[in-house]
């Protein structure tokens, strides 16, 4: 996959406080972080869907996986 998230959007999201500044190419790390998180989320969702013996990932799979993930991903 050669997809890229819009860097400007990521920069915007990284600024909880408007005054804070974003370093050069720091948003690339944000992209990396995002990809890693999505990857984990997808994995968990897949596992959940597999548990329910469903071929597709449904919403409730994702929600359940996300709950668990958000707790773990806490810097």
């Amino acid at each position, binding site marked *: 996959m050669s997809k890229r998230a819009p860097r400007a959007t990521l920069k915007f999201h990284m600024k909880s406080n408007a005054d804070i500044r974003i370093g050069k190419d720091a948003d690339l790390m944000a992209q990396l972080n995002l990809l890693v998180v999505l990857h984990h989320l997808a994995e968990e969702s897949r596992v959940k869907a597999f548990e329910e013996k469903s071929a597709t990932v449904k919403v409730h799979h994702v*929600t359940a996986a996300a709950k668990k993930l958000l707790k773990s991903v806490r810097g």
Partner: protein
Amino acid sequence: MDSVDEDVSARDLLRRVLHTELPRSPVTRSTTHVRRSARLNRTPGLESPAVALRHRLKRKLHESTQSPLPPPKRQRSTGGKTNPPAVATPPLYDDDVTTRGLLRGIIQMDTEASLLMSGQPAVQDADPYPDSSVSSAGEKTEGLSGAELSDLTLHTEPLTHVVRGLSRRKTQRAFSVSAFERQLDELPDKSVEEGSVPQEKQDVSQDLDFSAGSKSGLNLTLKSPFVEKRTERAGLKRKVTSRRLCSVDVLDEAVQKCLEQAPLPDYAEVQDGKTLEDSSWQKFTLGLSDVTELYVQPAASTVLQKKDDTVVPDAEMERDAENEEESALETVEEENQENKQNYVDEIQDVLDSESVIQENKDCDVELVSQEEMVPSSQEAEHSVSLSPEDDIMLAPTQAMTESAPEPQDVEEHDLETEEDIEEENGRGDSDTSQDLERITRRAHRSEGGRAFLTVPPGQRVTKSLGAGLNPREKDLLELGNRSREDVPDEEVEPQGSLLSPPLYPAAGVTTEQSPQQREASLDGEDLPVVEGTEFTTSEQRSHETSLSGKALPDTEEDDPQEVENQSEDENMIDSEPANQSPEPHSPAQEEEEEEEEEEEEEEEEEEEEEEEEEEDDDDDDAHSEELSMKTPAFVKQKKMIASASAQATPTVLKELNSGPAPQVVKRRPRQKRETGSDVLPKSYVMSVFKHFAKMKVASDVYPVINEILKKYFKRLAEDLEVYATHAKRKTIEIEDFELLMRRQRFVTDSMPVNILIEKYLPLEYRKLLIPVATSGNKVVPNRRR
């Protein structure tokens, strides 16, 4: 003395050798090379041919006479001096010394072989050596040798080449080429050169001696066949060119004839007459394929008529017939014009349009002729036929096919093809007659006969002009609209007849307004034009007509045939009352509509009303725009009308309500979507998620993921800010992120950051993040640390 004797004997010996031995130039060379390399350290290749011969001579001399030793010794020095490049070893020269002539002759033979390759003169020069009977010998090689023996001066150049041995071959080959060229030049037939050259080359490569000797003969043999072929080809070529030339002349004649006929107003009318068939034409226009097919037929017929003479007179005949028809049409139109006084303005418009149309047609004719010229040339097949008319006819067909995507062009082609058809033998007459009949029928049906008549030509003209100027189109469209009206009139005779005249102006206005709109349906084109014309004449009328015209285009779009008829009828009905009472359009229209409803089908009226109402809403703004634009409004209106008509609401109120409704509905969802905050583009997120999930993912999970990401980013930002502040910085740096990832357990001792970077990020980003050592002891990117 001895040498002399020896020379003589040597010569004899040489002759004998040559006679007995087959041409072994290549073999000898190889052997000589081997020997040379063994004996001599000098360039073995150069001496191969001569050396080989020398060796033979030596042996034979030794066998026959043992005298050669001393003379060769003598001549070693001389030989070496005389032929330093040729021979390296004096003993070799001794053999030749048996005579220098022998050796030289041998060398010359080789050289001559090459010379022969390069040019015959060498051989020829060698031939006339009376001293060497060898030359007269049957064997070519021998002859060559003899020739060589005789001529020493001529072979200075070849000697060097010969000495080179292997190089000789190459050089000989080269020479052969040059020789071939020379020979070719000498030869009258150049075609032979090509054939002979390769052959000669081949010979050269194989056996120089062989080829050299036989080249002359080969050349001769080679040449003959090639010459024949070439002549044949030339003949073919000539034929083609001749044909083309004829076609051009014929085309010019045809063009002139067309031009002569172009200025005639009848011509335009005749075209119009053809357009009368538009009901069928219109249908055809909708289906481009049909039109092309139609034209293909005439084209085929034209192709059959491959005789310019026959075609030309036919065209003339047809044109005359066309003129007659045109005149008839004109009379009919004139009569119709006189009938209606209310439509004076319209008439004026029509007349203007007619004039314009005529002018346009003239231009069109020219264009047609031009087009014909062009496509005729393009058509290889047709060009062969070489009939100016054929070309002209073909041109329209081509133009038809080319302009297939463009309905207007198709229409034009229709006109052109019609013209061409007329030109064709018999067809044109029948078509024109049919047109005339149709025209007359329509005229009778509707009082506004002139309108009908004018319309059809207008359609045609507009269509033909479609490719051309817009203003013309407008005028033409008016006419076209009228023609369209004719079409529906036919379907609804009683109603249409009365309403036809007023409708025409309306139609013209509508058609004019939408000239720019290129729609598959002719009706759409015609109606907008008609509308446009109306506006020019009178605003009120324009409103009425626009309303009706708009309805027409809209309806037409939906159902070209049915809608057109209905819309046209409606327009006619509406236009009539509108024209009659320039007062408020809506009331008149409503009244008219009511009346129409009673009289005509409700659907039609509804459509009209819908269209009108919708148009009213849009017309007010659209009119102003239409006047300027005259196309987008109609398009919009048409679309609106089309949608409205499709619904076919029975009451006007519903129509009114329905009109504005769709617009509002469209806007709302957009606004809602825009207000929604998307953390990241859905496409990106979903694609990434699907990729990671490796399973089918329901698309409705996106909102959930969105929410999750929202929370995540919020947390992320807070953490980063804390980290930066902790580092007493005001900017979030990569280090902050690294810390974050470590705390998130994404990065561990066993999983360094760089690995993650390599794993997830694309190459461009990786370069930016991971320092890479480059030349010059530089690290990219620069690390602040």
